[in-house]
């Protein structure tokens, strides 16, 4: 017991003395959350549209108004013809262009479909998809309103015949992009910092040659590991609390699920990530490399394969399978479920199970690594 306390205390001292690292560990997640939470917006805005209007009638002007109605899109350049428009797109001056052919109004009033051309810069595929969707949506709504107006004026029924879709949005009623990003962001930030912090601690001993002294002392593997791990978990908990408070109070993300369950999941996640860091630290006897590998091992997969940036369903089957190996995947599912949906164990038990498994396996691996170096 005393051995454990001694190790625990020593590790705490290490942490507290490395002021820069400690400050970074506590402030970083918070700062990054603020930065990305506000900066990353999934909703389309500030879109600059290039316009070629061969028709120049009230109808064509009305069309442009419809598209720009919600303020997300605005006309920034008007050019004379399609060639000029393509030049604009080539040079990246605008990313989307509208060409209204002559006769647009005429065709519409005749009750016939009037084609218009949308040119979009596909190099930025994510933007293109969003912008097109947005334009399409605006057009649809605009036209539906128009038709309703015309019908009403002509004395027709108040509501048009046909299917009217009544959408009720669940969990994220305002379709707030930030609410979607934040839980995922928390997962990504935490795992990276957790692994980075711990990956240094054993390797540091190796590099400073104090590992000999520790190995000689009659401390068992698990005790050594636990003693080293707990202080970092403490730091991790501090990180989680700051970040969650920011999420709730600054961004207004609701926590609809059980706080207790969320805390348990978070502890499992932290413990697992830190055990991973410890294991790497023990395996690679150099802080620098341990840090690098832990970055690579945790950051990339967490960012890319966990469902944070890209939906897992869209991925190549092999990568979907691989994503099962990434704890961030489970944690993100849990955080999104618990923050926004208010779901509990009934639904999330597979993810919880996976977290427990990950945590246990990592701790076991880290311990066995220590044991093998002790013998």
């Amino acid at each position, binding site marked *: 017991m005393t051995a454990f306390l001694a190790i625990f205390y020593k590790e705490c001292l290490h942490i507290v003395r490395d002021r820069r690292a400690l400050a970074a560990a506590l402030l970083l997640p918070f700062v990054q959350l603020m930065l990305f939470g506000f900066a990353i917006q999934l909703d*389309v805005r500030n879109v600059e549209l290039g316009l070629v209007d061969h028709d120049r009638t009230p109808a064509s002007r009305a069309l442009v108004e419809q598209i720009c109605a919600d303020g997300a899109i605005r006309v920034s350049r008007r050019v004379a013809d399609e060639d000029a428009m393509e030049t604009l797109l080539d040079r990246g001056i605008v990313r989307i262009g509208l060409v209204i052919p002559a006769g647009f109004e005429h065709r519409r009033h005749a009750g016939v479909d009037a084609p218009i051309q949308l040119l979009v810069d596909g190099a930025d595929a994510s933007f293109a998809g969003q912008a097109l969707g947005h334009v399409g949506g605006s057009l649809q709504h605009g036209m539906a309103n128009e038709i309703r107006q015309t019908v009403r004026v002509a004395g027709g029924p108040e509501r048009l015949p*046909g299917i009217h879709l009544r959408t*009720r949005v669940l969990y994220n009623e305002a379709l707030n992009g930030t609410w979607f990003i934040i839980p995922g962001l928390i997962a990504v930030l935490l795992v990276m910092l957790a692994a980075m912090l711990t990956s240094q601690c054993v390797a540091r001993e190796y590099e400073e040659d104090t590992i000999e002294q520790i190995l000689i002392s009659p401390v068992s593997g698990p005790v050594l590991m636990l003693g080293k791990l707990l202080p970092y978990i403490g730091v991790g908990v501090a990180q989680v609390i700051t970040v969650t408070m920011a999420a709730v109070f600054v961004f207004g993300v609701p926590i609809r699920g059980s706080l207790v369950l969320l805390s348990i999941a978070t502890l499992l996640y932290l413990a697992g990530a830190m055990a991973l860091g410890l294991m790497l630290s023990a395996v690679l006897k150099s802080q620098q490399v341990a840090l690098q590998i832990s970055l690579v091992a945790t950051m990339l997969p967490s960012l890319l394969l966990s469902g944070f940036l890209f939906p897992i369903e869209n991925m190549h089957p092999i990568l979907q399978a691989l994503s099962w190996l990434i704890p961030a995947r489970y944690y993100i599912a849990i955080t999104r479920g618990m923050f926004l949906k208010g779901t509990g164990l009934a639904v999330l038990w597979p993810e919880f199970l996976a977290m427990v498994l990950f945590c246990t396996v990592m701790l076991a691996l880290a311990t066995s690594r220590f044991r093998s170096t002790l013998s």
Partner: protein
Amino acid sequence: MMFSFRRMAAVARKELRHILRDHRMRPVLFIVPVMQLIILGYAANMDVDHVKMMVVDHDRSPVSREVAQRLDAGVAFDVVEITEYEADAERALDAGDAEVAILLPPGLARGLARAEAVDVPMWLDGTDSNRGTIAQTYAETILAGISADHLPARQAPIGRADPRVRVLYNPALRSRWFMVPGVVVMVLAVVTSLLSAMAIVKEREKGTIEQLVVTPIRPAELIAGKLLPFVGIGLFIAALVTVAAIIVFGVPFRGSFLDLVLMCLVFLMSTLGVGLLGSTLAQTQQQAMLAVFLVLMPSFLLGGVFYPISNMPGWAQTLANLTPVRYFIEIVRALFLKGAGLDVLAADAAALAAIGLVVLGVATFRFRKRSA
């Protein structure tokens, strides 16, 4: 005393040997690019399709069945289950088994036949707001089509504006074509910034820097010599990734390779500058790593590698405009997909060069102060 190329070359040669002989650096040099390439090439897909849908059919008519069929038919939706009970839909949405539930009311068929307005509720999982919004548009379009088909034919009071879309440079809007050029940028930035910072700090940590400073080697020669190997390594890796992008992922490269090399060199000014700057702020290697990493991560997320910059609020856009990544990713995408020439790239290249000079300048200044 004049700048001596011989001394600088000696430093560069020494550095290169250090890097190549650090057998633990080697896997990282190769693993990082390959991993990012594979993941971004195969995983990155932001298209909204195959949205999982539950159909609650209270009508149970040929029309309702047809609706379900047509919703399932395209790529937009995958109907996972057709049920009679709302509770099933609720459960599916909570569990994430479905993202959308559409409730076909009793009297759907009748209402359409009588040319009445029929309300069809849809429950939408708003967690992924982007996906949700687009799914909503899809549903509206498909249902509007069904309506039109089932209503007695009538003259439309006014014609619709019918958008024909032409997508330039990436007609199929393949996410991969968008993401993979980003890998070139990220890999180059990560490898060169991180490793250069660490290499410099390592020297200081080991204490061998004193032996260097006492020689006639000038700070400028030292800096240049330390950074030069990373230029070579950076270009080599960028070349590897580009070749992989073209051959393995089929991303077209329509510009000039020479332009790419040139632009990489300009970008390297910034990344190496960041590495050098990071090394002056840190006392240990992991501090250096953290410092560089802290600069890189935000610059990727904010720089337009994943999310369009135009979406961001004004202040974030200003921040983005200060990062070299933002310009370089534009340039690389333009080179790959648009076949842009230097005349088009000039503005971005100039910005990139300006930032690079500033960063390198500040970094060099700080480094000299420290070693003096």
